[in-house]
């Protein structure tokens, strides 16, 4: 399996990562190296081995239903480039 320059450009666009042609030229072989490397793992026979979902044998912890957080609007909005009337203000987004 390998990726084409078009696929890499597409993925970059979906992830909103701007990419120059020079970067693209460098990244395509790099990504293909990684993919080839992962592909090697597929050669191992894993028949009868349970899928490993985490390296530490732990269970997902659940939280009790209690209000323990929030009510910190100033902190939430502090890093926003623009905020008005308690809202984040962003360039108009409407279809």
């Amino acid at each position: 399996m390998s990726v084409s320059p078009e696929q890499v450009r597409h993925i970059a666009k979906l992830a909103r990562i701007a990419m120059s042609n020079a970067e693209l030229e460098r990244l395509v072989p790099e990504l293909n190296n990684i993919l080839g490397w992962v592909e090697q793992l597929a050669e191992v026979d894993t028949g009868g081995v349970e899928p490993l979902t985490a390296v530490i044998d732990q269970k997902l912890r659940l939280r009790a239903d209690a209000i323990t957080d929030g009510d910190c609007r100033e902190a939430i909005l502090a890093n926003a480039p623009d905020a008005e009337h308690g809202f984040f203000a962003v360039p108009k987004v409407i279809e």
Partner: protein
Amino acid sequence: MADSTAPYRVKGDTGEWEVVVGLEVHAQITASKAKMFSGAATAFGAEPNTQVSLVDAAMPGMLPVPNQECIRQAVRTGMALDAVINRWSRFDRKNYFYADLPQGYQISQLYHPLVGPGEVEILLDDKDENSVKQIGIERIHVEQDAGKLMHDQHPTKSYVDLNRCGVALMEIVSRPDMRSPAEAGAYLRKLRAILRYVGSCDGNMEEGSMRADVNVSVRKPGGEFGTRTETKNVNSVRFVMAVIEHEAKRQVELIEEGGEVAQETRLYDPDKNVTRSLRSKEDAHDYRYFPDPDLLPLELDEAFLEECRSSLPELPDAKRKRYEGLGITPYNAGVLTAEVETARWFDALLDAGAEPRQGANWVVAELFGALNRRNETLATTGISPVEAAELLKLVADGTISGTLAKQVFEIMLETGDAPSRIVEERGLKQTSDTGAIDAEIDKILAANADKVAEYKGGKPQLFGFFVGQTMKAMQGKANPQVVNERLRAKLD
């Protein structure tokens, strides 16, 4: 009346078409106080961005921890829909960028949902308990809601409120089993009723706690499935039905003109009653799902499932059957079980000793009539089931007549007083005292000698006039049966 079980068909130039409908219902888990993955509050209508934690705002380094109550409610909902509960499920990231989603992805469950196949039973005809149809449920998964955008507050800016961001949703995906707007309406109403019985979601469509994505396609009856469109975020039963009707017609016209239905997302405009294409970029659906590395798989043990199961209330179908077993008509049983508040109120009425048939008739006719007239609900009215049972008992044991009961009920509505007190204080007890009744009858017959002569001369319909006059003279308190008997004795 039209046969509501006849197949729904869209008439085109090339013959009749069948419509195929599937619904994806997003139901907010309103039962939880806190959000799905954070400890921020979920209450509706708070000041903007006051119910947002650093997790919801997707600050770097924050980690999600699932709320046990949200999982519990989704499992209970699944059980109420007779669905398979998956003891092992997993969370996935659905990646997309939008201003209402600070994480850049929604935590959802694509590959291993919490709840698998189940079903909902609907009635195609409210008055016919045999007109049942099963609508398949494909799955229910839990996911996070996004924030809210406001576009009309500023000429060049959109405002973002993240209060809803991270609130737990259940996405309930039906199979494409519905064949008409009416079936979709019946399914939604039934699903909403079940959610409200379970208590997982309040079903409040106005506040957005329940909304539907409507999948519609058309085909020649019994033929291959056509290409479907998906109309997003429809927020009332009526609108869902309108979308199906409109969208089926549009697709039939399009196909018959030689066009092709595009698999696309559409939006419904309730003001114009049309759907329009949401022309998004072609890669908008490229969500690049992958397992969320912040969350381990969700594993449920038997004790957890058992608690979910044993905490389920009696559900609408079981309750309806039980009511019918008590002698209540299928129609009344349907009305009484359609809303959980009504059913609880009626159960309390039965507990207070009301006779089921009489009680059901009274609630459906008298109580609902009065509530409608007064623009009230069971929640706002002061009438308690105990007082209502007392009123019904006064009728059943002959203390007051049906006519007097209506009068007492009106006074109860106005004053909030107990019926026995009203009857006592206002002297409304029904009388069978023949002496008093005879005295009034004699006066009336004497004062209306002309009518008595007419009656005797062959106008039997005048009998009702004498009954009416007597009841009026007795201020409605005479036992109608005794009045009839005494009048017959004197006139015939």
